[in-house]
């Protein structure tokens, strides 16, 4: 739709549909509220939360974050390749993003399984309630992200479609999943 204007003009433009940005900002507010409740109750009874947090493995969290940042990087490359018409490279980056997203998902499920085996369920302590709630709702966003990546790949595959606007919209969603994880990671694993 906007390929021509993108190529010709070096002026400022909103990446993707502005509508998606409305979603990003609104959903970020909702998450900020979740985080706010978490931090408030955490600060009120720090020992309880510290005790739960000590059972998380920070290294897994760091690895998760690096994988998801890498997927964000590859989808950003995908957008730039699509913009200059390098659709083959863009498609490859799209698949790479999905693969990295899948890797994140698998490691998340393994981490959950490990915690449950250690006896830390959804209801077993306040910290783990928040842990499973925040990672779970993020997981739901990630699952939706795969639908979004599906749209992105579908757009890139056929010359008849290839709407740069939609590609950017999808990428914006994926980055949102990424930066929400950056916040969740910091708040669940590192905050004291």
């Amino acid at each position, binding site marked *: 739709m906007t390929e021509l204007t993108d190529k010709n003009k070096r002026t400022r433009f*909103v990446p993707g549909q502005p509508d998606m940005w409305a979603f990003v900002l609104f959903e970020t507010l909702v998450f900020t509220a979740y*985080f706010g409740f978490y931090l408030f109750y955490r600060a009120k009874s720090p020992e309880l939360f510290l005790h739960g947090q000590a059972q998380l493995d920070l290294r897994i969290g760091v690895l998760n974050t690096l994988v998801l940042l890498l997927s964000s990087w590859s989808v950003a490359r995908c957008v730039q390749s699509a913009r200059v018409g390098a659709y083959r490279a863009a498609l490859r980056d799209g698949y790479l993003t999905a693969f990295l997203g899948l890797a994140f998902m698998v490691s998340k499920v393994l981490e959950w399984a490990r915690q449950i085996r250690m006896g830390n369920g959804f209801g077993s302590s306040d910290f783990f309630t928040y842990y499973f709630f925040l990672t779970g709702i993020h997981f739901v966003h990630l699952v939706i992200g795969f639908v979004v990546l599906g749209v992105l790949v579908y757009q890139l595959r056929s010359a008849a479609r290839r709407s740069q606007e939609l590609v950017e919209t999808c990428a914006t969603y994926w980055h949102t999943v990424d930066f929400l994880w950056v916040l969740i990671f910091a708040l669940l694993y590192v*905050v*004291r």
Partner: protein
Amino acid sequence: MIDIKFNKRLLVVWLVLSALTLAYLWIDHSVDGGGSLRGSAVVTSSVIVIASIKVRIIFREFMEVRQAPVLLCRLTDAWVVLIAVSLLACYFVGVALR
């Protein structure tokens, strides 16, 4: 080749973000000196600030807000500040009400 230059920039961005992530390991390690679990407002504040910086970098570079109209730049910056301030406020109100 304009795209190669962009890609290099993206790679640098990713490296910066990863370095900030690894900084958490160091923060976490340094606070565990005594072996006992302690809450620390300094760690919490610095972690929230670092996370906000990372979010802003993702906004600016990955999400291409850098090239977006000024309104979107201001809006996302405001949001980052809003997130950081709300989180710190919630934490410190909780501490005060302990």
